[in-house]
């Protein structure tokens, strides 16, 4: 059961790396969703003999591992804090860091949100769409857990 899940996870890992590495400008969500579907299909194929309970737990475990990789991708190679840490370690001045990000830090994030349909732009105004609303509502739960206002 665990071996099947790990095999399916390995397939996901290799597929999504291959897709992202081949074309940097490729839509990353598409790469993640495509490789997730492939890995889940492989898992179902591997676990032909197992019962529903085992299949459910394996799929749940695989999904959480995929989510972990998703987190890793958006935290380390594309995250801001890790890049700042790298620059600080290289002894780059705070002013230089700010100048580097001054132009496009926020605008690039807005473009990303717009491209992935979390927000909509109309007449220079930004609107939140249902996807964005769901994610922002979940912040209430996290704020409660972390005791933040």
């Amino acid at each position: 059961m665990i071996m099947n899940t790990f095999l399916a996870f390995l397939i996901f890992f290799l597929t999504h790396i291959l897709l992202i590495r081949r074309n940097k400008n490729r839509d990353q969500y598409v790469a993640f969703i495509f490789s997730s579907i492939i890995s889940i299909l492989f898992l179902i194929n591997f676990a032909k003999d197992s019962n529903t309970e085992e299949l459910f737990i394996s799929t749940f475990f695989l999904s959480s591992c995929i989510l972990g990789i998703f987190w890793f991708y958006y935290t380390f190679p594309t995250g801001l804090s890790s890049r700042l840490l790298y620059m600080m370690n290289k002894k780059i001045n705070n002013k230089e860091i700010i100048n580097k990000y001054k132009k496009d830090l926020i605008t690039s994030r807005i473009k990303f949100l717009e491209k992935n349909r979390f927000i909509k732009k109309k007449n220079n105004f930004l609107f939140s769409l249902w996807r964005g609303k769901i994610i922002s509502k979940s912040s209430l739960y996290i704020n409660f857990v972390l005791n933040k206002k």
Partner: protein
Amino acid sequence: MNIIKLIILIFFITTLINSFLNFFNKNKEIKNFFFSLIPVYLLICIFNFFGGSLSLIKLNMLFISCSIIFFVLITNIYRSVTLEILMYISKKNKIEQKKLLKKFDVKKFITGRINNIYSSNIYIKKKGLNLQGKVLLTLYKISKIIYNR
């Protein structure tokens, strides 16, 4: 015990213990999360012993899956730049892009992040990176190689 009930139970207990720890031990979210794992694991073992019939492997797989999901939630939704922007737009429902850019002043944003790095002692001004910082930086370098960025 039904698996879905067990998953809900794990999330419920983790939420309770985490919010309790964060209430008394502020600004140590990640440490509190790891501390909360031990009582959660013990509690679900007890619940499974009395009301469920899951084997230890299945129970561990469920527990690890839920922990990963919870970890991703608390680390990503709370601190990501993109999500912070998304939450602000969702809160306001409709906002002009210029106003948003004014609100998210890059200089303040980056100095805030740098101060966070200093205050969490990941990077100490005279000494450089501590062990946690070194691990994070290594992960960043590995991720850059993996994703060809």
